[in-house]
């Protein structure tokens, strides 16, 4: 009999995989279809689209690329539809496909859209390099925000206060940079601001067991009120405390001169490079190190962690403060990294998009990066299409990240499983 019970698998667990989820594949199919009808066929026969990628400083110049609009957009849409078909097949076969599928799908649809938007516009090129560069730049606060959310939630604390952490980071960066006359001092101050908001979240959520969503929401209001108030009083009375300070560009030697990749990835200010390092370090630490193992244990089963001597609440407090600091650093994007003075509510909901990127990225730094890049790209696209005078109302493009998020949480939920102890205060 012992052989029977020694089977390492629960009864009936081997034969069936998770319930089929159709929302994802169907959504992809619909988007692919829209792409096919509107962008593919809609590009109109005979039109041409010109893509340009080059800059003068490159090692060598890549000529502009002119393609027949309808054919290209249609072809890209067909690729997207094929990928949707693959997703349907995978669902039927109960197989899971890697993260490459949504990424390639998105690239195909976006390519189709760009081809359509640039169709028949003599003299107006689709600026690929510019588009990708601004996608990276616009994703900065989203990446930092999503990393913050990931760190907090992996330890079991929901961080809705990302928005407030970004905003306070932006505020203090501007204030300190202006007061010291050094943008880098602002870059140092930003994480401190975020950490402060994180510490408040930690105190209320971990020590006083206040509902984490409540604290987060209220902290956002507090930071908006506080920064707007100081903006309207302290900064108004002393304009020298809120000046446009800029970090300045630090092109990476050699690498920054590679066509496309150079300007897109290696010709930025310090914050972008810090972002690269942060993502890589956090990803490794979270999944390979002792610290990461303990953090994840605390977020999944705090009592189990406690019984092996891990201090649950201490871990949570540290993570939330660290997460706050990271989001605060992302806040520096709005002021010292962008070379702007502080403005009222200037984060404009980016913290919530970061939250969405965290969910879409399945609570992993790598995933958060990909999702944030996707949203950054959508934003960059909105700007580029605005410049090109696209027929799509800018409001609809503005909605894109929000719609994508709703689609993601509604369609992909179940495949994305949050840490089990998330949102629950740990009481012995």
């Amino acid at each position, binding site marked *: 009999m012992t052989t029977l019970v020694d089977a390492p698998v629960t009864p009936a667990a081997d034969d069936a995989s998770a319930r089929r989820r159709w929302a994802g594949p169907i959504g992809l199919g619909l988007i692919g279809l829209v792409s096919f009808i509107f962008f593919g066929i809609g590009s109109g026969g005979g039109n041409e689209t010109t893509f340009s990628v080059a800059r003068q400083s490159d090692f060598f110049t890549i000529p502009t690329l002119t393609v027949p609009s309808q054919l290209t957009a249609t072809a890209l849409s067909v690729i997207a539809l094929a990928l949707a078909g693959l997703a349907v097949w995978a669902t039927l076969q109960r197989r899971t496909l890697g993260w490459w599928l949504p990424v390639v799908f998105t690239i195909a649809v976006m390519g189709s859209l760009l081809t359509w938007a640039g169709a028949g516009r003599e003299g107006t090129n689709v600026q690929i390099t510019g588009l990708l560069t601004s996608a990276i730049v616009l994703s900065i606060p989203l990446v930092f925000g999503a990393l913050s959310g990931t760190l907090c939630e992996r330890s079991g604390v929901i961080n809705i206060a990302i928005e407030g952490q970004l905003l306070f980071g932006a505020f203090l960066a501007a204030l300190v940079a202006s007061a010291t006359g050094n943008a880098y001092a602002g870059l140092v101050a930003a994480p401190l601001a975020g950490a402060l908001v994180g510490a408040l979240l930690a105190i209320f959520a971990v020590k006083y067991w206040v509902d984490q969503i409540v604290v987060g929401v209220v902290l956002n209001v*507090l930071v908006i*009120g506080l920064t*707007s108030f100081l903006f309207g*009083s302290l900064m108004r009375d002393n304009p020298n405390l809120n000046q446009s300070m800029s970090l300045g560009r630090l092109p990476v030697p050699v690498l920054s001169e590679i066509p496309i990749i150079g300007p897109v990835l290696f010709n930025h200010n310090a914050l972008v490079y810090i972002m690269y390092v942060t993502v890589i370090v956090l990803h490794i630490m979270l999944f390979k190190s002792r610290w990461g193992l303990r953090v994840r244990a605390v977020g999944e089963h705090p009592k189990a962690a406690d019984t092996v001597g891990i201090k649950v609440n201490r871990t949570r407090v540290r993570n939330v403060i660290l997460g706050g600091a990271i989001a605060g650093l992302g806040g520096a994007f709005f002021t010292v990294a962008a070379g702007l003075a502080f403005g009222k509510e200037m984060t404009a909901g980016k913290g919530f998009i970061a939250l969405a990127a965290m969910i879409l990225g399945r609570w992993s730094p790598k995933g958060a990066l990909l999702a944030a890049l996707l949203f950054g790209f959508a934003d960059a696209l909105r700007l580029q299409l605005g410049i090109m005078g696209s027929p799509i*109302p800018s409001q609809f493009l503005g909605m894109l990240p929000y719609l994508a998020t709703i689609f993601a949480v509604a369609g992909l939920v179940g495949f994305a499983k949050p840490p089990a102890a998330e949102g629950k205060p740990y009481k012995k």
Partner: protein
Amino acid sequence: MSESTATTDRSSADGPESEGSPEEAGRDFGRLMREITQSDLLVVVFAIFAAMLLGGLLVVLADKDVLATTGYFFSRPGDFFAAVGGTLSSVFTTMFQGAIYNTNASDVAVGIRPFTQTLTVATPLILAGLGLGLGFRAGLFNIGAQGQIIIGATVGAYVGFAWDLPVVLHLIVAVVGCVLGGAIWGFIPGFLKARTGAHEVITTIMLNYIALNLVSFALSKTAFQRPGSTNPQSPLIAETAEYPLILGSAYNLHLGFLLALAAAGGVWWLLERSTWGFQFRAVGANPHAARTAGMSVSKVYILVMVTAGALAGLAGSAQILGTEHSLTAGVAASFGFDAITVALLGRSRPLGIVFAALLFGALRAAGPALQVQAGVPVDIVLVIQSLIVLFIAAPPLVRTMFRLPAPAHVKEVAA
């Protein structure tokens, strides 16, 4: 169940809100005092007090007259304290005069105008707060009142300016439009939650931004544009669709306020006395048990969100048909977000929400006066508001700050 879980159940069931057992609570005066100091009400009062104090401190610290005196604080500290005192008294006087009674007024009719303004501002807060509170009771953290107000106001505005209907009927149809608009915007997250499990916090946040984009888009189209204007604002709604002013044209207070009070009564009945409310509360407190007892949790989620959206839509009607009379992208101001703090401060109870809305309405109503007379940015209101909610959410913090005795059960929970 093991002993350990049995005992932790005991302690956690005695949540921070329940009182100590009667045997333990001593006698007579001592007992009375303990009950008062341990009650929620006292915590609320002290939380408001502490938040006002901190808010005042912030104003003082950011005030340029006060800051000027700090430069020579050690040579003439008296100037510093005089400046602090001057700023504080001017702030609190202005708040009182801006929100309750204008003591400078020539007669009572003018003097009470600030108070009627407080009631007017409180109206959308009550309505949206009721919607959110209803959601909280059913375990739904609906952050979407902002979007629901916007969509409700958009529909109501369209009915108001584009349709031509007889008196009374026009108002009714416009109100119904607001309610429907809000209800639809509430239905979406409710439906998504029920069908796919999508977390309502995320979906409602996103729907707020979508609503904002939608109204901006609408206002860029001729159907919503005011003729002869390039600004993104709609034509004025017809007078037939406006809420009547209940104290005459000298005051802004409109019928929507009475509607809000009626809605508070209605929501109380719904929650406490109806079978729907019984289901809402059961699902909110323990969805598993509610489901096992035969309730449809999905149906409750949808119903609650639709009702909450409808109430937020009513709040939108107070804005568009009561005070604004013309649609702009800022029609909801920040009422949807303020309503979250209202519902939290009111502990999701209708009566509590009415009082919380009056308090925050008063703070808001005092805003313009603060800005103009005391030179204090109106945003201080947000700071005070959020501090109040933070303090109330953590009674032990307030008790520590003011050295109030801890209720008997706290030891138990801490153990």
